[in-house]
């Protein structure tokens, strides 16, 4: 299955959850948020929500400065 991760095309296994993907990429850490197809997915859904072919995943960090 092909997805886009932070605007880059990426090949990944079928029936992968969001948490699986981030673990695989070693990016599952505090202070990050995740959007799938421009919709932010609350943290408690990362374990359950599966990726679909063509999904656009955006992972980004909290900014607190000002």
């Amino acid at each position: 299955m092909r997805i886009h991760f932070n605007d880059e095309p990426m090949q990944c296994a079928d029936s992968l959850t969001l948490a699986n993907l981030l673990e695989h990429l070693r990016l599952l850490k505090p202070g990050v948020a995740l959007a799938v197809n421009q919709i932010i997915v609350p943290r408690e859904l990362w374990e359950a929500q599966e990726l679909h072919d063509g999904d656009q995943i955006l992972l980004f960090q909290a900014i607190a400065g000002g």
Partner: protein
Amino acid sequence: MNDTDFMRYSRQLLLEDVAFEGQKKLLASRVLIVGLGGLGSPAALYLAAAGVGTLILADDDNVHISNLQRQILFTSQDIGQPKSQAAQRHLKQLNPGIELQVISDRLHGEALNQAVSNVSLVLDCSDNMATRQAINAACVTHNKPLISASAVGFGGQLMVLTPPWEHGCYRCVWPDENEPERNCRTAGVLGPVVGVMGTLQALEAIKVLTGIIPASGSLRLFDARQHSWRALSMQKSARCPVCGGTDAHPL
């Protein structure tokens, strides 16, 4: 409104969406600005200029020379002085017709609750996660609109959070209390980047206060290198301890 007010606010009175009714709403509004740094500077200047009737200016810091590259509310003469008082002085010169209150202590706990409870809306212009989480919780408790922005490096984030929190609150997006490693002190920031974000906070505040539909329900990400924006829809977290999802455990 007197004749001077009509002249002072004439360019926004001309707008159908603001007009006399909107200006009256602005003049009757009370806005709490937490943090008078790179975000709070332009936000406070624009809101004072627009005639928000009462601004409550909260910051416990003094002006440092390293602030002046981006904190356009202050001048070299203000170095060493409390930001809240320097801000009050400059804003008074800009618009003597509004009330300017200062809070020179760090806002937390009961003082924060008290401050939030009697305003029309809150601008989060602070510089740390602990304060951001506390402001969000206070705004949800008191049902006050919150316009939250932040910036570091070439990036900015903006959220307009309004009751009844259908799209969730700040904590639904950022459930962690940890401080991000990168901040303006460690990673740097360009003045105009934080200026854009603070300016947009003032814009959204004017919209909320005058009844123009604000850009709520989404997190806006600003990439200053590409000069691009992303709008990401927010969703209420079922486990949010602040805005009360069904599975929430209260804090």
